[in-house]
């Protein structure tokens, strides 16, 4: 297990910057989630750490030592790819054993079999060990590729949306399983995801990337409650944060151009009148689509609400977030 430090890391593909001047310290045993839309540089960051890409500038330190000169194999990292990670010509067993048979480890076959079985049990693929990798369903393939990372005890685990192709139930189970394994091993993990629940429940730290730049790094709570910009605020929260003109509800702090309202920032029952447009009943939550002066607002209400489209409700902000015209956070002034 190890700490990872990225120092002014930059990688361009042609003229396009994929990772731009990223500095980041991942403490030993941390579970770091990288958030950002497609093209933000999350996967490239993982690939740089893995040694699959060479940075144009900057340095990567694992346990205080630069690894730029090292081959991927020497860096002692394990990576779960988003897709195409299983060797299609091998069985599940051989896929899982592949890293252990590498010239660097060369375990003896009895030990390999034992370890492969253990990991297969955890991931519930023990009954598929004899199958060819191509005979698996998408979810099973993904579990095998997670398993291929878990059979080893590398210094760092890198995971690129490992749970994205799984169904909801399995994803929930593996989320807990991965977190448990990470805590038990005290493993350092760099994890890319789009999924808010994964980020909030598993991460000890969240890094938000925007077009290659790291815009905020902190605990999941900090990122959620205290975002530095609209962009960061929009990464987390379901339904998404509502961004409206800052003066829609009257007073606003100096410099604020927009007000950001998450559902918990909206108090229903007093304030300005908004019209109910649509009601989405998702089962565990009910979303209310409101219109106020032509602005669409999405919030939550009680699950069994009696409201119907066309009703009028009064709303007012409660400890909202303010942002300036460029999207940067403005102190709320209270």
């Amino acid at each position, binding site marked *: 297990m190890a700490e990872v430090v990225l120092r002014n890391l930059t990688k361009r593909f042609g003229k396009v910057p994929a990772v731009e001047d990223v500095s980041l310290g991942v403490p030993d045993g941390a579970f770091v989630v990288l958030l950002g839309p497609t093209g933000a540089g999350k996967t490239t960051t993982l690939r740089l750490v893995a*040694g699959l890409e060479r940075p144009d500038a900057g340095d990567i330190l694992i346990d205080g030592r630069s690894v730029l000169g090292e081959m991927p*194999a020497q860096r002692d990292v394990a990576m779960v790819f988003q897709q195409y990670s299983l060797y299609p010509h091998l069985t599940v067993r051989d896929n899982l054993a592949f*890293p252990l048979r*590498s010239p*660097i480890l060369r375990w003896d076959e009895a030990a390999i079999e034992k370890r492969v079985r253990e990991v297969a049990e955890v991931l519930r693929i023990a009954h598929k060990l004899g199958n060819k990798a191509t005979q698996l369903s998408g979810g099973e393939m993904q579990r095998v590729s997670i398993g291929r990372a878990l059979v080893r005890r590398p210094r760092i685990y890198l995971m690129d949306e490992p749970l994205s192709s799984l169904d909801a139930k399995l994803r929930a189970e593996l989320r807990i399983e991965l977190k448990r394994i990470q805590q038990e091993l005290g493993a350092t993990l760099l994890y890319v995801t789009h999924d808010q629940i994964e980020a909030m429940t598993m991460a000890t730290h969240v890094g938000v990337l925007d077009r290659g730049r790291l815009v905020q790094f902190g605990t999941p709570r900090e990122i959620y409650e205290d975002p530095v910009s609209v962009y960061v605020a929009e990464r987390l929260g379901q339904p998404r944060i509502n961004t409206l003109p800052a003066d829609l509800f009257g007073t606003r702090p100096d410099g604020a151009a927009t007000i950001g309202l998450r559902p918990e920032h909206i108090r229903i029952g007093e304030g300005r009148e908004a019209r109910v447009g649509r009601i989405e009943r998702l089962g565990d939550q009910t979303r209310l689509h409101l219109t106020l002066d032509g602005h669409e607002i999405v919030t939550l209400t009680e699950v069994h609400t009696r409201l119907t489209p066309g009703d009028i409700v009064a709303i007012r902000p409660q400890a909202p977030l303010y942002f300036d015209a460029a999207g940067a956070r403005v102190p709320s002034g209270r």
Partner: protein
Amino acid sequence: MSAHSITEPSATTKWISGGLVVAYAVVTLIPLLWIVATGFKTPADAISYPPKVVFDPTIEGYVNLFTTRTRVTPEQLESLPPPEGIAEEIVRSYGMVIAGPSRFGERFMNSVVIGFGSTFLSVFLGTLAAYAFSRFKIPLSDDLLFFILSTRMMPPIAVAIPIFLMYRQLGLSDTHLGMILLYTAVNISLAVWLLKGFIDEIPREYEEAALIDGYTRFQAFYKVVLPQAATGIASTAIFCLIFAWNEYAFAVLLTSGTAQTAPPFIPTIIGVGGQDWPAVAAGATLFLLPVLIFTVLLRKHLLRGITFGAVRK
């Protein structure tokens, strides 16, 4: 199943398509069948008119193919001990004795060594080059690939005379090595292009996963890329072998003895002891076999190649 189901053609369609396939097979196979049959005829049956479809099979053609014979006087024939084996018996019935083995076996082995040798070399070098073109940033790689392809644009025989002179200077005329190098030079562009296509199709993630799993690039190539390129390697090998095996013009020009391959040798059989068509047909039949066997052996990979892409997500 409905009549217009996509998965299951109707009975009529099946009958018509089946009939067409059988008709086509018959038309294309009759000449082959004729060659095989002629190999088992007597010289008289082979040229009889009208042609004999039903005949008494004999291995005379094969005996003549593999032996050289000398005519002896009836008195000498009388004085010999009784014939050993069927071959001796057939030869003596024509008033001759077996003088020794013919050169067919030797020429056939030359074909095997040169054909398979050049196929191996083409596929080996082709795979490495194709991998490099597919995975690494090579300056001017498009131009290089075009250059490699351009070597195929001229019929090889157009440069026959320069090659003939060059080979004479280098001492490569009528050598196995010379022929292997020549056929490799002709085949390599095909091999590079075909294999590059196949290797391009293999996602890089597989190798990258292997690199992270603790393997070097060469090990990743060997353990991950090669098995997945098996289909491409098999089909490329078949194409290369078919060319090298059947090549006639250069074989006639550049080989005459030690390294002579079967194609220029087989026609010379006609001249030995009259028009011996059964022996020629026997030689042709045996000559067909290796490519056939090679293709059948690699068939599994070829079939897999057709279905492989379809089952992946």
